[in-house]
């Protein structure tokens, strides 16, 4: 198929678009359309599709625009809720992973030393740290207390890292 341009195509197109064909076409242009395959195709197809359009448009059944507005509002609202919830879910997952890693690390480190913390629990009631008077002194800063400080610290760290992640993802 050869793509051959016709210099009068624009003129014919203009008349077709404005709905003035063939009334406003000069006899010379009309005779050109009869002899030019390209312009002839253009007129034939344009008129056929236009008549099809007129008929199809009348068959359209329209919904209420209010219904579409309501659906769009609902979708935008759901998207907004989802965008708020996404960083929170990410932060929760991150905090959970951090917590698990810390717990695994702790168990692994304790396992190396023969799970001494079990013994620590047995000895806990006798420790000075559980007596009220020790609250008023700094004497509790002993090796026994390492775990009591370590565990909450790591817990707080895990929570804070989740919050930091939330803030970072929320900014994006």
């Amino acid at each position, binding site marked *: 198929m050869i793509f051959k341009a016709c210099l009068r195509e624009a003129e014919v197109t203009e008349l077709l678009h404005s709905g003035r064909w063939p009334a406003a076409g000069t006899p010379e242009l009309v005779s050109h359309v009869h002899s030019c395959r390209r312009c002839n195709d253009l007129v034939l*197809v344009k008129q056929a599709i236009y*008549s*099809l*359009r007129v*008929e199809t*448009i009348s068959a359209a059944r329209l*919904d209420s*625009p209010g219904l*579409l507005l309501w659906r769009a509002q609902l979708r935008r609202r759901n998207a907004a809720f989802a965008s708020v919830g996404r960083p929170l879910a990410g932060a929760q997952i991150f905090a959970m992973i951090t917590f698990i890693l810390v717990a695994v690390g702790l168990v692994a480190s304790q396992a190396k030393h023969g799970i001494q913390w079990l013994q620590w629990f047995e000895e806990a009631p006798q420790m000075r740290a559980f007596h009220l008077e020790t609250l008023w002194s700094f004497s509790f800063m002993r090796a026994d207390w390492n775990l009591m400080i370590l565990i909450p610290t790591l817990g707080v760290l895990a929570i804070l890292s989740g919050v930091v992640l939330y803030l970072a993802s*929320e900014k994006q």
Partner: protein
Amino acid sequence: MTWEYVIPNVETGAPSRASELPMDNDAFAAFYKRSARSLWAYLARVSGDPALADDFMQESYVRFLCASRPDEGEVASRRYLFGIATNLLRDHWRKPASTSIEELPEELFAEKDRAMQLDSHASLGRAMARMRPRDRQLLWLAHAEDYSHREIAEITGLGEASIRLLLFRARRKMAKLLRERPAEKAKRA
């Protein structure tokens, strides 16, 4: 102190403000009235399925309303709307077998056009149904909606130079089908 203060930018009113649409009710109703029939006709003739056209028209308007884009006037909005509809059609055709729109057999679309062939311009509809979906799209946008090659390129995502050639081929094919019609009638008589 509530959690909204601890975690910034999360306000209780945010979702309700997010549901505010770029067009108010009256403006949208007017725009819808002027554009809906044309859009439906485009979808129905290109897809060959009036029920699908109903669904896609709704979806096109909802996506149009949800999109955050600057107001560039009615002509641009209309073009954008047709672009959404075109994407929906493309996604629909791609879905069943993950094949390209050009690779789909014409018979598949001709079959779906049964409902559309019942109209008074049945033979015209049949000729249209025998075209490839992309050809139908181009022909409809160019000759039913009077879009320029540049506008069609914007709507379909094709290159402007390709549109010129594809449209030429589609028009030639359609004209051939339309010319066959009276010849077939004469033969039958």
